[in-house]
């Protein structure tokens, strides 16, 4: 009975997220006015900005999990670290692609090696390495410790990405504030950030469960068949 209640709540949460996502997309694509200079192309902002923000948020979650794991080992923290690294990779890769598409008609180029874009590229490649590390280490405890160490080092890049546009002269514009953006656009942007945040939460929870189940399966194998065990070098 309780199982079924939980199941229904989950379905309701996913449907609610989808509803908010649809409304946010409508505000961004239809309701909000086009930009004075960019025209309709500016509407890419309502997907690009939230996506990249969720990448930074995932990176921060990953960092916190890594630090916590080193102080108090727990499979749950490790599972959340794995989940957040993967969502950082997914949201970052898509968000950067959107930025490149936006860059072509506004900057004139898809890509430039300015500090902001370079540091984001570094973060994405580094998290790809992190996921590879998790795959290549078979002992769950060692994997958890080593990926925590790696995650902490990668996370140094997160504040650098955020502040890069303020610290250095770059092609990428600095963060907008409500004062520099029309109120209608701010409204649409807020809804989109909320929507993508909810999507991130749904993804994180789903991925966390996958990771945790895998961890429990790995650590509670009663007796491995002789010879079937992987040799850990």
């Amino acid at each position, binding site marked *: 009975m309780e199982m079924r209640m939980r199941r229904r709540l989950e379905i309701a949460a996913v449907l609610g997220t989808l509803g908010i996502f649809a409304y946010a997309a409508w505000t961004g694509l239809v309701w909000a006015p086009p930009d004075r200079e960019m025209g309709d*192309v500016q509407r890419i902002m309502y*997907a*690009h900005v939230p996506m990249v923000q969720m990448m930074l948020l995932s990176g921060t979650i990953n960092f916190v999990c890594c630090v916590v794991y080193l102080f108090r080992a727990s499979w749950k923290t490790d599972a959340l670290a794995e989940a957040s690294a993967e969502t950082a990779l*997914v949201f970052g890769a898509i968000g950067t692609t959107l930025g490149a598409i936006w860059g072509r008609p506004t900057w004139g180029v898809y890509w430039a090696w300015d500090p902001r874009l370079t540091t984001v590229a570094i973060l994405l490649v580094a998290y790809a390495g992190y996921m590879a590390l998790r795959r290549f280490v078979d002992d769950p405890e060692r994997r958890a410790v080593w990926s925590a160490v790696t995650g902490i080092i990668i996370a140094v890049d997160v504040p650098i990405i955020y502040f890069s546009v303020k610290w250095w002269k770059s092609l990428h514009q600095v963060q907008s504030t409500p004062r520099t953006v029309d109120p209608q656009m701010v409204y649409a942007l807020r809804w989109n950030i909320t929507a993508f945040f909810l999507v991130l939460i749904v993804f994180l929870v789903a991925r966390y469960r996958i990771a945790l189940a*895998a961890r429990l399966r790995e650590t509670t194998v009663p007796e491995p068949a002789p010879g079937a065990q992987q040799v850990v070098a």
Partner: protein
Amino acid sequence: MMNALHSVLAAVGEGRIQGGWEYVKAAYAICWTGLALYAVSLWARRPREEPK
């Protein structure tokens, strides 16, 4: 060949890289497809009850 060259030059002649709905459509298509594909992959990897 000459035609293709001409159209490239004509693009310069227009004076601008024209931005428009094509860019918006491409961006949102990539975004939604990407997220949907990831959701599908999460669904495919969901932990199943192991037969005891």
